[in-house]
Protein backbone atom coordinates (compact mmCIF):
# COMPACT_ATOMS: atom_id res chain seq x y z
CA UNK A 1 0.00 0.00 0.00
CA UNK A 2 2.85 2.33 0.69
CA UNK A 3 3.99 1.90 -2.88
CA UNK A 4 1.10 4.06 -4.05
CA UNK A 5 2.50 6.90 -2.04
CA UNK A 6 6.15 6.69 -2.82
CA UNK A 7 7.59 9.49 -4.82
CA UNK A 8 8.70 7.40 -7.76
CA UNK A 9 5.25 5.86 -8.18
CA UNK A 10 3.74 9.31 -8.11
CA UNK A 11 6.20 10.51 -10.71
CA UNK A 12 5.38 7.55 -12.89
CA UNK A 13 1.70 8.40 -12.68
CA UNK A 14 2.26 12.01 -13.61
CA UNK A 15 4.78 11.32 -16.37
CA UNK A 16 2.40 10.50 -19.26
CA UNK A 17 0.45 13.73 -18.89
CA UNK A 18 3.55 15.84 -18.52
CA UNK A 19 5.31 14.26 -21.49
CA UNK A 20 2.27 14.57 -23.75
CA UNK A 21 1.64 18.19 -22.87
CA UNK A 22 5.33 18.98 -23.13
CA UNK A 23 5.42 17.54 -26.64
CA UNK A 24 2.16 19.31 -27.54
CA UNK A 25 3.52 22.58 -26.29
CA UNK A 26 7.03 22.43 -27.70
CA UNK A 27 6.94 20.61 -31.03
CA UNK A 28 4.28 22.57 -32.94
CA UNK A 29 5.31 25.88 -31.41
CA UNK A 30 8.96 25.33 -32.30
CA UNK A 31 7.89 24.49 -35.84
CA UNK A 32 5.78 27.63 -36.04
CA UNK A 33 8.74 29.73 -34.94
CA UNK A 34 10.96 27.94 -37.48
CA UNK A 35 8.46 28.43 -40.33
CA UNK A 36 8.00 32.07 -39.43
CA UNK A 37 11.58 32.72 -40.53
CA UNK A 38 11.19 30.92 -43.87
CA UNK A 39 9.90 32.01 -47.22
CA UNK A 40 7.63 29.02 -47.62
CA UNK A 41 4.55 28.74 -49.81
CA UNK A 42 2.72 25.44 -50.24
CA UNK A 43 2.11 26.22 -53.90
CA UNK A 44 5.86 26.37 -54.49
CA UNK A 45 7.25 23.30 -52.75
CA UNK A 46 11.01 22.98 -52.54
CA UNK A 47 11.53 26.73 -52.73
CA UNK A 48 11.90 27.27 -48.99
CA UNK A 49 14.63 29.66 -48.00
CA UNK A 50 15.64 31.63 -44.95
CA UNK A 51 13.81 34.93 -44.88
CA UNK A 52 14.91 36.57 -41.64
CA UNK A 53 12.25 38.82 -40.19
CA UNK A 54 10.67 39.61 -43.54
CA UNK A 55 7.53 37.60 -42.72
CA UNK A 56 7.11 39.60 -39.55
CA UNK A 57 7.69 42.92 -41.25
CA UNK A 58 5.31 41.88 -44.04
CA UNK A 59 2.66 40.86 -41.56
CA UNK A 60 3.14 43.86 -39.29
CA UNK A 61 2.92 46.36 -42.14
CA UNK A 62 -0.07 44.72 -43.84
CA UNK A 63 -3.10 47.04 -43.51
CA UNK A 64 -5.20 43.93 -42.95
CA UNK A 65 -3.13 43.24 -39.84
CA UNK A 66 -4.11 46.51 -38.20
CA UNK A 67 -7.71 45.96 -39.16
CA UNK A 68 -7.47 42.47 -37.67
CA UNK A 69 -5.95 43.75 -34.42
CA UNK A 70 -8.66 46.37 -34.19
CA UNK A 71 -11.37 43.79 -34.90
CA UNK A 72 -9.91 41.34 -32.40
CA UNK A 73 -9.96 44.01 -29.69
CA UNK A 74 -13.44 45.16 -30.72
CA UNK A 75 -14.78 41.62 -30.43
CA UNK A 76 -13.11 41.02 -27.06
CA UNK A 77 -14.14 44.37 -25.57
CA UNK A 78 -17.59 44.46 -27.15
CA UNK A 79 -18.51 40.98 -25.99
CA UNK A 80 -17.01 41.57 -22.54
CA UNK A 81 -19.00 44.78 -22.16
CA UNK A 82 -22.30 43.11 -23.07
CA UNK A 83 -21.75 39.90 -21.14
CA UNK A 84 -20.35 41.37 -17.92
CA UNK A 85 -23.00 44.10 -17.57
CA UNK A 86 -25.76 41.78 -18.77
CA UNK A 87 -24.41 38.93 -16.67
CA UNK A 88 -24.44 40.98 -13.46
CA UNK A 89 -27.98 42.17 -14.15
CA UNK A 90 -29.20 38.66 -14.98
CA UNK A 91 -27.45 37.11 -12.00
CA UNK A 92 -29.04 39.66 -9.66
CA UNK A 93 -32.42 38.93 -11.23
CA UNK A 94 -32.09 35.15 -11.04
CA UNK A 95 -30.97 35.38 -7.41
CA UNK A 96 -34.40 36.78 -6.44
CA UNK A 97 -37.12 34.47 -5.20
CA UNK A 98 -39.47 33.56 -8.06
CA UNK A 99 -41.64 30.81 -9.42
CA UNK A 100 -39.90 28.30 -11.67
CA UNK A 101 -36.36 29.52 -10.97
CA UNK A 102 -34.81 26.26 -12.12
CA UNK A 103 -36.50 26.44 -15.52
CA UNK A 104 -35.49 30.06 -16.13
CA UNK A 105 -31.93 29.14 -15.23
CA UNK A 106 -32.00 26.34 -17.79
CA UNK A 107 -33.38 28.68 -20.47
CA UNK A 108 -30.65 31.22 -19.80
CA UNK A 109 -27.80 28.71 -19.79
CA UNK A 110 -28.82 27.05 -23.05
CA UNK A 111 -26.98 29.28 -25.58
CA UNK A 112 -23.66 28.36 -24.04
CA UNK A 113 -24.24 24.70 -24.90
CA UNK A 114 -24.91 25.36 -28.59
CA UNK A 115 -22.06 24.59 -30.97
CA UNK A 116 -20.63 27.79 -32.50
CA UNK A 117 -21.44 26.89 -36.10
CA UNK A 118 -25.10 26.25 -35.29
CA UNK A 119 -25.44 29.45 -33.26
CA UNK A 120 -23.84 31.55 -35.97
CA UNK A 121 -25.83 30.06 -38.85
CA UNK A 122 -29.15 30.28 -37.04
CA UNK A 123 -28.57 33.96 -36.27
CA UNK A 124 -27.23 34.69 -39.74
CA UNK A 125 -30.10 33.12 -41.64
CA UNK A 126 -33.18 32.99 -39.50
CA UNK A 127 -32.74 36.31 -37.71
CA UNK A 128 -30.34 38.66 -39.48
CA UNK A 129 -31.13 37.80 -43.09
CA UNK A 130 -32.51 41.00 -44.69
CA UNK A 131 -35.16 39.15 -46.72
CA UNK A 132 -36.30 36.12 -44.75
CA UNK A 133 -34.99 36.84 -41.27
CA UNK A 134 -37.22 37.52 -38.29
CA UNK A 135 -35.58 40.91 -37.69
CA UNK A 136 -36.52 41.96 -41.21
CA UNK A 137 -40.10 40.91 -40.56
CA UNK A 138 -40.20 42.89 -37.29
CA UNK A 139 -38.74 45.92 -39.07
CA UNK A 140 -41.40 45.72 -41.77
CA UNK A 141 -44.04 45.38 -39.08
CA UNK A 142 -43.05 48.84 -37.88
CA UNK A 143 -42.83 50.17 -41.41
CA UNK A 144 -39.03 50.29 -41.37
CA UNK A 145 -36.58 49.24 -44.03
CA UNK A 146 -34.99 45.85 -43.13
CA UNK A 147 -31.37 46.22 -42.14
CA UNK A 148 -28.76 43.98 -43.75
CA UNK A 149 -26.78 43.19 -40.60
CA UNK A 150 -23.99 41.10 -42.06
CA UNK A 151 -23.35 43.37 -45.03
CA UNK A 152 -23.60 46.73 -43.29
CA UNK A 153 -22.46 45.96 -39.76
CA UNK A 154 -20.52 42.70 -40.02
CA UNK A 155 -18.36 43.23 -36.96
CA UNK A 156 -21.29 44.26 -34.78
CA UNK A 157 -23.25 41.22 -35.97
CA UNK A 158 -20.39 38.90 -35.02
CA UNK A 159 -20.12 40.61 -31.62
CA UNK A 160 -23.86 40.15 -31.02
CA UNK A 161 -23.78 36.46 -31.94
CA UNK A 162 -20.74 35.76 -29.77
CA UNK A 163 -22.19 37.79 -26.89
CA UNK A 164 -25.36 35.69 -27.03
CA UNK A 165 -23.22 32.59 -26.63
CA UNK A 166 -21.16 33.94 -23.72
CA UNK A 167 -23.83 35.77 -21.74
CA UNK A 168 -24.87 32.50 -20.07
CA UNK A 169 -21.30 31.81 -19.00
CA UNK A 170 -20.97 35.17 -17.25
CA UNK A 171 -24.43 34.83 -15.73
CA UNK A 172 -23.83 31.32 -14.43
CA UNK A 173 -20.52 32.17 -12.78
CA UNK A 174 -21.71 35.45 -11.29
CA UNK A 175 -24.87 33.74 -10.03
CA UNK A 176 -22.80 31.03 -8.38
CA UNK A 177 -20.67 33.69 -6.71
CA UNK A 178 -23.75 35.67 -5.70
CA UNK A 179 -25.28 32.67 -4.00
CA UNK A 180 -22.26 32.34 -1.77
CA UNK A 181 -22.90 35.82 -0.36
CA UNK A 182 -23.86 35.60 3.28
CA UNK A 183 -27.60 36.22 3.74
CA UNK A 184 -27.01 37.61 7.20
CA UNK A 185 -24.65 40.25 5.89
CA UNK A 186 -27.32 41.43 3.49
CA UNK A 187 -29.88 41.53 6.26
CA UNK A 188 -27.52 43.38 8.58
CA UNK A 189 -26.93 45.99 5.89
CA UNK A 190 -30.65 46.30 5.36
CA UNK A 191 -31.28 46.76 9.08
CA UNK A 192 -28.63 49.45 9.18
CA UNK A 193 -30.74 51.29 6.66
CA UNK A 194 -28.65 50.67 3.53
CA UNK A 195 -30.75 51.10 0.40
CA UNK A 196 -30.77 48.62 -2.47
CA UNK A 197 -28.29 50.69 -4.46
CA UNK A 198 -25.74 51.16 -1.70
CA UNK A 199 -26.05 47.49 -0.77
CA UNK A 200 -25.20 46.68 -4.37
CA UNK A 201 -22.22 49.06 -4.53
CA UNK A 202 -20.70 48.39 -1.12
CA UNK A 203 -21.62 44.78 -0.48
CA UNK A 204 -22.57 42.83 -3.60
CA UNK A 205 -20.13 44.31 -6.11
CA UNK A 206 -17.03 43.85 -3.90
CA UNK A 207 -18.14 40.29 -3.23
CA UNK A 208 -18.47 39.69 -6.99
CA UNK A 209 -15.19 41.37 -7.93
CA UNK A 210 -13.24 38.13 -7.90
CA UNK A 211 -15.81 36.28 -10.03
CA UNK A 212 -15.97 39.22 -12.44
CA UNK A 213 -12.20 39.09 -12.85
CA UNK A 214 -12.37 35.37 -13.55
CA UNK A 215 -15.12 35.92 -16.12
CA UNK A 216 -13.17 38.67 -17.86
CA UNK A 217 -9.92 36.73 -18.02
CA UNK A 218 -11.37 33.40 -19.14
CA UNK A 219 -13.63 34.98 -21.72
CA UNK A 220 -10.72 37.01 -23.07
CA UNK A 221 -8.71 33.84 -23.65
CA UNK A 222 -11.56 32.37 -25.69
CA UNK A 223 -12.62 35.59 -27.37
CA UNK A 224 -9.13 36.26 -28.70
CA UNK A 225 -9.59 33.13 -30.82
CA UNK A 226 -13.13 33.53 -32.13
CA UNK A 227 -13.12 31.65 -35.42
CA UNK A 228 -16.11 29.52 -36.39
CA UNK A 229 -18.60 32.35 -35.95
CA UNK A 230 -16.68 34.48 -38.44
CA UNK A 231 -16.04 31.63 -40.88
CA UNK A 232 -19.71 30.72 -41.36
CA UNK A 233 -21.24 34.20 -41.23
CA UNK A 234 -19.09 36.84 -42.92
CA UNK A 235 -16.03 34.84 -43.91
CA UNK A 236 -14.01 37.77 -42.62
CA UNK A 237 -15.63 40.24 -44.98
CA UNK A 238 -16.78 42.31 -46.62
CA UNK A 239 -13.13 42.86 -47.45
CA UNK A 240 -11.44 42.43 -44.09
CA UNK A 241 -14.09 44.27 -42.09
CA UNK A 242 -14.76 41.36 -39.77
CA UNK A 243 -11.40 39.58 -39.94
CA UNK A 244 -9.79 39.04 -36.55
CA UNK A 245 -6.25 37.88 -35.94
CA UNK A 246 -7.21 34.19 -35.77
CA UNK A 247 -9.11 34.41 -39.02
CA UNK A 248 -6.32 36.37 -40.71
CA UNK A 249 -3.77 33.68 -39.86
CA UNK A 250 -6.17 30.98 -41.05
CA UNK A 251 -6.73 32.79 -44.34
CA UNK A 252 -3.00 33.31 -44.82
CA UNK A 253 -2.27 29.64 -44.17
CA UNK A 254 -5.12 27.65 -45.68
CA UNK A 255 -6.43 30.00 -48.35
CA UNK A 256 -3.20 31.63 -49.56
CA UNK A 257 -0.90 28.75 -48.57
CA UNK A 258 1.65 31.20 -47.19
CA UNK A 259 3.18 29.06 -44.44
CA UNK A 260 5.84 31.60 -43.50
CA UNK A 261 3.53 34.58 -43.22
CA UNK A 262 0.84 32.65 -41.38
CA UNK A 263 3.42 31.35 -38.90
CA UNK A 264 4.62 34.87 -38.15
CA UNK A 265 0.99 35.86 -37.55
CA UNK A 266 0.52 32.84 -35.31
CA UNK A 267 3.51 33.84 -33.18
CA UNK A 268 2.10 37.35 -32.81
CA UNK A 269 -1.21 35.82 -31.66
CA UNK A 270 0.66 33.67 -29.13
CA UNK A 271 2.44 36.73 -27.72
CA UNK A 272 -0.84 38.63 -27.36
CA UNK A 273 -2.56 35.71 -25.64
CA UNK A 274 0.37 35.30 -23.27
CA UNK A 275 -0.03 38.83 -21.99
CA UNK A 276 -3.61 38.00 -20.98
CA UNK A 277 -2.70 34.56 -19.71
CA UNK A 278 -0.09 36.03 -17.39
CA UNK A 279 -2.78 37.81 -15.39
CA UNK A 280 -5.20 34.89 -15.48
CA UNK A 281 -2.59 32.48 -14.18
CA UNK A 282 -1.81 34.73 -11.25
CA UNK A 283 -5.50 34.80 -10.35
CA UNK A 284 -5.91 31.06 -10.47
CA UNK A 285 -2.59 30.51 -8.74
CA UNK A 286 -3.88 32.30 -5.68
CA UNK A 287 -6.74 29.86 -5.32
CA UNK A 288 -4.24 27.00 -5.08
CA UNK A 289 -2.73 28.34 -1.89
CA UNK A 290 -5.06 26.25 0.22
Amino acid at each position, binding site marked *: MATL*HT*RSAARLMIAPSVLLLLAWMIVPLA*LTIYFSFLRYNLLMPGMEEFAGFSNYSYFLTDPAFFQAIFNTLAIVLGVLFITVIGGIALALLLDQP*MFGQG*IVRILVIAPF*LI*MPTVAALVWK*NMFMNPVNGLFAWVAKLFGLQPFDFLANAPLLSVILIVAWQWLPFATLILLTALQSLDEEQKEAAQMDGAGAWSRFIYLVLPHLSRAITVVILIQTIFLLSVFAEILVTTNGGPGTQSTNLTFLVYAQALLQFDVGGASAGGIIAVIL*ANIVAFFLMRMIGKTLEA
Partner: protein
Amino acid sequence: MARNVSTRRKVVVTVVAWTIGILIFFPILWTFLTSFKSEAEAIASPPSLLFFDWTTENYFEVQSRSNYFRHFMNSVVVSFGSTLIGLVIAIPSAWAMAFSPTKRTKDVLMWMLSTKMMPSVGVLVPMYLMFRNTGLLDTRTGLVIVLTLINLPIIIWMLYTYFKEIPGEILEAARMDGASLSKEIIYVLTPMAIPGIASTLLLNIILAWNEAFWTLNLSAAKAAPLTAFIASYSSPEGLFYAKLSAASTMAIAPILILGWFSQKQLVRGLTFGAVK
Protein backbone atom coordinates in the same frame (compact mmCIF):
# COMPACT_ATOMS: atom_id res chain seq x y z
CA MET B 1 -33.98 33.45 8.26
CA ALA B 2 -35.27 33.79 4.75
CA ARG B 3 -35.99 37.20 3.38
CA ASN B 4 -39.54 38.38 3.78
CA VAL B 5 -40.80 38.85 0.31
CA SER B 6 -44.21 40.02 -0.63
CA THR B 7 -46.04 37.81 -3.09
CA ARG B 8 -46.53 40.73 -5.42
CA ARG B 9 -42.82 41.33 -5.73
CA LYS B 10 -42.30 37.66 -6.36
CA VAL B 11 -44.85 37.68 -9.17
CA VAL B 12 -43.23 40.71 -10.80
CA VAL B 13 -39.77 39.12 -10.60
CA THR B 14 -41.19 35.91 -12.03
CA VAL B 15 -42.74 37.66 -15.03
CA VAL B 16 -39.60 39.69 -15.80
CA ALA B 17 -37.26 36.72 -15.38
CA TRP B 18 -39.38 34.40 -17.52
CA THR B 19 -39.67 37.02 -20.27
CA ILE B 20 -35.92 37.50 -20.40
CA GLY B 21 -35.28 33.78 -20.15
CA ILE B 22 -37.60 33.03 -23.06
CA LEU B 23 -36.06 35.83 -25.13
CA ILE B 24 -32.57 34.44 -24.60
CA PHE B 25 -33.76 30.92 -25.36
CA PHE B 26 -35.89 32.00 -28.32
CA PRO B 27 -33.35 31.36 -31.13
CA ILE B 28 -33.10 27.75 -29.97
CA LEU B 29 -36.86 27.37 -29.68
CA TRP B 30 -37.28 28.94 -33.11
CA THR B 31 -34.75 26.51 -34.62
CA PHE B 32 -36.62 23.61 -33.06
CA LEU B 33 -39.98 24.79 -34.40
CA THR B 34 -38.62 25.59 -37.86
CA SER B 35 -37.24 22.08 -38.15
CA PHE B 36 -40.84 20.84 -38.33
CA LYS B 37 -41.97 23.27 -41.02
CA SER B 38 -41.87 22.90 -44.76
CA GLU B 39 -39.24 25.02 -46.50
CA ALA B 40 -41.96 27.39 -47.76
CA GLU B 41 -43.42 27.83 -44.31
CA ALA B 42 -39.97 28.36 -42.83
CA ILE B 43 -39.65 31.68 -44.67
CA ALA B 44 -43.35 32.57 -44.66
CA SER B 45 -44.29 36.13 -43.76
CA PRO B 46 -45.82 36.58 -41.28
CA PRO B 47 -44.01 33.69 -39.63
CA SER B 48 -46.17 31.20 -37.76
CA LEU B 49 -45.13 30.16 -34.29
CA LEU B 50 -47.13 26.98 -33.76
CA PHE B 51 -49.95 26.82 -36.28
CA PHE B 52 -48.38 25.25 -39.31
CA ASP B 53 -48.44 21.77 -40.80
CA TRP B 54 -46.02 19.90 -38.63
CA THR B 55 -43.81 17.60 -40.63
CA THR B 56 -40.78 15.46 -39.91
CA GLU B 57 -39.67 15.24 -43.53
CA ASN B 58 -36.70 17.60 -42.98
CA TYR B 59 -35.10 15.09 -40.68
CA PHE B 60 -35.34 12.37 -43.33
CA GLU B 61 -34.20 14.79 -46.03
CA VAL B 62 -31.10 15.73 -44.10
CA GLN B 63 -30.25 12.11 -43.49
CA SER B 64 -30.80 10.91 -47.05
CA ARG B 65 -29.11 13.87 -48.75
CA SER B 66 -25.98 14.13 -46.70
CA ASN B 67 -25.69 10.96 -44.67
CA TYR B 68 -26.25 12.89 -41.47
CA PHE B 69 -25.81 9.84 -39.29
CA ARG B 70 -22.18 9.45 -40.29
CA HIS B 71 -21.35 12.97 -39.14
CA PHE B 72 -23.28 12.38 -35.97
CA MET B 73 -21.23 9.25 -35.34
CA ASN B 74 -18.04 11.21 -36.06
CA SER B 75 -19.04 13.63 -33.32
CA VAL B 76 -19.81 10.76 -30.94
CA VAL B 77 -16.54 8.96 -31.64
CA VAL B 78 -14.42 12.09 -31.47
CA SER B 79 -15.95 13.55 -28.31
CA PHE B 80 -16.24 10.28 -26.37
CA GLY B 81 -12.93 8.96 -27.68
CA SER B 82 -10.93 12.04 -26.76
CA THR B 83 -12.61 12.29 -23.36
CA LEU B 84 -12.07 8.65 -22.42
CA ILE B 85 -8.44 8.61 -23.52
CA GLY B 86 -7.95 11.90 -21.69
CA LEU B 87 -9.41 10.39 -18.51
CA VAL B 88 -7.19 7.31 -18.72
CA ILE B 89 -4.11 9.54 -18.94
CA ALA B 90 -5.32 12.12 -16.45
CA ILE B 91 -6.72 10.03 -13.58
CA PRO B 92 -3.35 8.67 -12.37
CA SER B 93 -1.74 12.10 -12.72
CA ALA B 94 -4.45 13.98 -10.86
CA TRP B 95 -4.53 11.22 -8.27
CA ALA B 96 -0.81 11.40 -7.59
CA MET B 97 -0.83 15.19 -7.44
CA ALA B 98 -3.78 15.28 -5.06
CA PHE B 99 -2.61 12.58 -2.65
CA SER B 100 1.16 12.81 -2.69
CA PRO B 101 1.85 16.42 -3.51
CA THR B 102 5.41 17.68 -3.64
CA LYS B 103 6.82 21.17 -3.66
CA ARG B 104 6.56 21.23 -7.41
CA THR B 105 2.97 20.02 -7.73
CA LYS B 106 1.57 23.52 -7.89
CA ASP B 107 4.05 24.55 -10.57
CA VAL B 108 3.25 21.48 -12.63
CA LEU B 109 -0.47 22.21 -12.41
CA MET B 110 -0.01 25.83 -13.37
CA TRP B 111 2.23 24.87 -16.25
CA MET B 112 -0.36 22.38 -17.53
CA LEU B 113 -2.95 25.10 -17.43
CA SER B 114 -0.69 27.46 -19.32
CA THR B 115 -0.66 25.08 -22.28
CA LYS B 116 -4.39 25.74 -22.53
CA MET B 117 -3.72 29.45 -22.91
CA MET B 118 -1.84 28.99 -26.15
CA PRO B 119 -4.10 30.18 -28.98
CA SER B 120 -4.79 27.32 -31.37
CA VAL B 121 -4.00 29.47 -34.35
CA GLY B 122 -0.40 29.73 -33.13
CA VAL B 123 0.14 26.08 -34.00
CA LEU B 124 -2.35 25.72 -36.85
CA VAL B 125 0.27 25.69 -39.60
CA PRO B 126 2.57 22.96 -38.23
CA MET B 127 -0.37 20.84 -37.09
CA TYR B 128 -1.95 21.06 -40.53
CA LEU B 129 1.32 20.14 -42.25
CA MET B 130 2.10 17.30 -39.83
CA PHE B 131 -1.39 15.90 -40.26
CA ARG B 132 -1.12 16.19 -44.03
CA ASN B 133 2.24 14.45 -44.10
CA THR B 134 1.17 11.61 -41.82
CA GLY B 135 -2.21 11.04 -43.46
CA LEU B 136 -4.09 12.09 -40.31
CA LEU B 137 -5.90 14.90 -42.09
CA ASP B 138 -9.65 14.27 -42.22
CA THR B 139 -9.52 11.18 -39.99
CA ARG B 140 -11.30 10.51 -36.73
CA THR B 141 -7.99 9.39 -35.22
CA GLY B 142 -6.42 12.74 -35.96
CA LEU B 143 -9.30 14.67 -34.38
CA VAL B 144 -9.26 12.41 -31.32
CA ILE B 145 -5.53 13.07 -30.86
CA VAL B 146 -5.85 16.85 -31.07
CA LEU B 147 -8.96 17.09 -28.90
CA THR B 148 -7.39 14.83 -26.28
CA LEU B 149 -4.40 17.14 -26.10
CA ILE B 150 -6.29 20.41 -25.96
CA ASN B 151 -8.67 19.18 -23.24
CA LEU B 152 -6.15 17.22 -21.15
CA PRO B 153 -5.25 20.21 -18.94
CA ILE B 154 -8.92 20.84 -18.11
CA ILE B 155 -9.48 17.15 -17.34
CA ILE B 156 -6.48 17.02 -15.01
CA TRP B 157 -7.48 20.23 -13.30
CA MET B 158 -11.07 19.20 -12.72
CA LEU B 159 -10.09 15.77 -11.42
CA TYR B 160 -7.47 17.36 -9.19
CA THR B 161 -9.97 19.70 -7.54
CA TYR B 162 -12.37 16.81 -6.98
CA PHE B 163 -9.74 14.39 -5.65
CA LYS B 164 -8.44 17.11 -3.37
CA GLU B 165 -11.79 17.05 -1.59
CA ILE B 166 -11.53 13.37 -0.68
CA PRO B 167 -10.35 13.36 2.93
CA GLY B 168 -7.04 11.55 3.36
CA GLU B 169 -8.04 10.34 6.82
CA ILE B 170 -10.52 7.95 5.30
CA LEU B 171 -7.66 6.13 3.59
CA GLU B 172 -5.78 5.99 6.87
CA ALA B 173 -8.82 4.60 8.62
CA ALA B 174 -9.32 1.93 5.98
CA ARG B 175 -5.69 0.94 6.29
CA MET B 176 -5.92 0.77 10.06
CA ASP B 177 -8.85 -1.57 9.66
CA GLY B 178 -6.55 -3.78 7.65
CA ALA B 179 -7.81 -3.10 4.13
CA SER B 180 -5.41 -4.24 1.45
CA LEU B 181 -4.47 -1.90 -1.38
CA SER B 182 -6.87 -3.50 -3.81
CA LYS B 183 -9.71 -3.38 -1.30
CA GLU B 184 -8.84 0.18 -0.48
CA ILE B 185 -9.12 1.12 -4.12
CA ILE B 186 -12.30 -0.82 -4.84
CA TYR B 187 -14.33 -0.13 -1.72
CA VAL B 188 -13.07 3.21 -0.46
CA LEU B 189 -11.53 5.28 -3.20
CA THR B 190 -13.56 4.37 -6.25
CA PRO B 191 -16.96 5.20 -4.77
CA MET B 192 -15.64 8.56 -3.59
CA ALA B 193 -13.91 9.38 -6.84
CA ILE B 194 -16.71 8.41 -9.21
CA PRO B 195 -18.85 11.56 -8.91
CA GLY B 196 -15.86 13.75 -9.74
CA ILE B 197 -14.84 11.55 -12.64
CA ALA B 198 -18.40 11.53 -13.97
CA SER B 199 -18.61 15.33 -13.83
CA THR B 200 -15.30 15.65 -15.61
CA LEU B 201 -16.46 13.21 -18.27
CA LEU B 202 -19.65 15.15 -18.84
CA LEU B 203 -18.04 18.56 -19.13
CA ASN B 204 -15.41 17.31 -21.50
CA ILE B 205 -17.86 15.62 -23.79
CA ILE B 206 -19.66 18.93 -24.03
CA LEU B 207 -16.44 20.82 -24.77
CA ALA B 208 -15.24 18.28 -27.33
CA TRP B 209 -18.65 18.05 -29.02
CA ASN B 210 -18.73 21.81 -29.58
CA GLU B 211 -15.05 22.34 -30.41
CA ALA B 212 -15.02 24.29 -33.65
CA PHE B 213 -11.49 25.33 -34.50
CA TRP B 214 -9.61 22.10 -35.03
CA THR B 215 -12.63 20.17 -36.26
CA LEU B 216 -13.22 22.81 -38.94
CA ASN B 217 -9.59 23.04 -40.00
CA LEU B 218 -8.49 19.41 -39.83
CA SER B 219 -11.50 17.58 -41.24
CA ALA B 220 -13.31 17.54 -44.56
CA ALA B 221 -16.05 15.33 -45.99
CA LYS B 222 -14.98 12.04 -44.44
CA ALA B 223 -14.32 12.65 -40.75
CA ALA B 224 -16.26 15.89 -40.33
CA PRO B 225 -18.12 15.96 -37.03
CA LEU B 226 -21.35 17.93 -36.74
CA THR B 227 -19.60 21.27 -36.15
CA ALA B 228 -17.96 21.00 -39.55
CA PHE B 229 -20.97 19.42 -41.25
CA ILE B 230 -23.28 22.24 -40.12
CA ALA B 231 -20.72 24.77 -41.37
CA SER B 232 -21.37 23.46 -44.90
CA TYR B 233 -24.77 25.20 -44.68
CA SER B 234 -22.99 28.55 -44.85
CA SER B 235 -23.00 28.34 -48.65
CA PRO B 236 -26.23 26.52 -49.45
CA GLU B 237 -28.31 26.27 -52.59
CA GLY B 238 -32.05 26.95 -52.67
CA LEU B 239 -34.32 26.99 -49.66
CA PHE B 240 -32.68 25.45 -46.64
CA TYR B 241 -33.92 27.00 -43.38
CA ALA B 242 -35.99 23.99 -42.38
CA LYS B 243 -33.23 21.54 -43.24
CA LEU B 244 -30.63 23.67 -41.44
CA SER B 245 -32.96 23.69 -38.44
CA ALA B 246 -33.43 19.94 -38.47
CA ALA B 247 -29.71 19.31 -38.74
CA SER B 248 -29.04 21.83 -35.98
CA THR B 249 -31.69 20.46 -33.66
CA MET B 250 -30.21 16.98 -33.83
CA ALA B 251 -26.72 18.41 -33.32
CA ILE B 252 -27.51 20.42 -30.20
CA ALA B 253 -30.19 18.33 -28.48
CA PRO B 254 -27.90 15.73 -26.87
CA ILE B 255 -25.56 18.36 -25.50
CA LEU B 256 -28.36 20.59 -24.23
CA ILE B 257 -29.65 17.68 -22.20
CA LEU B 258 -26.20 16.74 -20.89
CA GLY B 259 -25.44 20.37 -20.09
CA TRP B 260 -28.64 20.92 -18.14
CA PHE B 261 -27.70 18.02 -15.91
CA SER B 262 -24.27 19.41 -15.21
CA GLN B 263 -24.76 23.14 -14.61
CA LYS B 264 -22.75 23.19 -11.38
CA GLN B 265 -19.84 21.27 -12.86
CA LEU B 266 -19.80 23.67 -15.80
CA VAL B 267 -18.91 26.57 -13.51
CA ARG B 268 -16.28 24.65 -11.67
CA GLY B 269 -14.67 23.13 -14.73
CA LEU B 270 -14.65 26.28 -16.80
CA THR B 271 -13.10 28.40 -14.08
CA PHE B 272 -10.52 25.74 -13.15
CA GLY B 273 -11.94 25.58 -9.66
CA ALA B 274 -11.59 29.34 -9.10
CA VAL B 275 -15.36 29.68 -8.65
CA LYS B 276 -17.31 26.88 -7.00
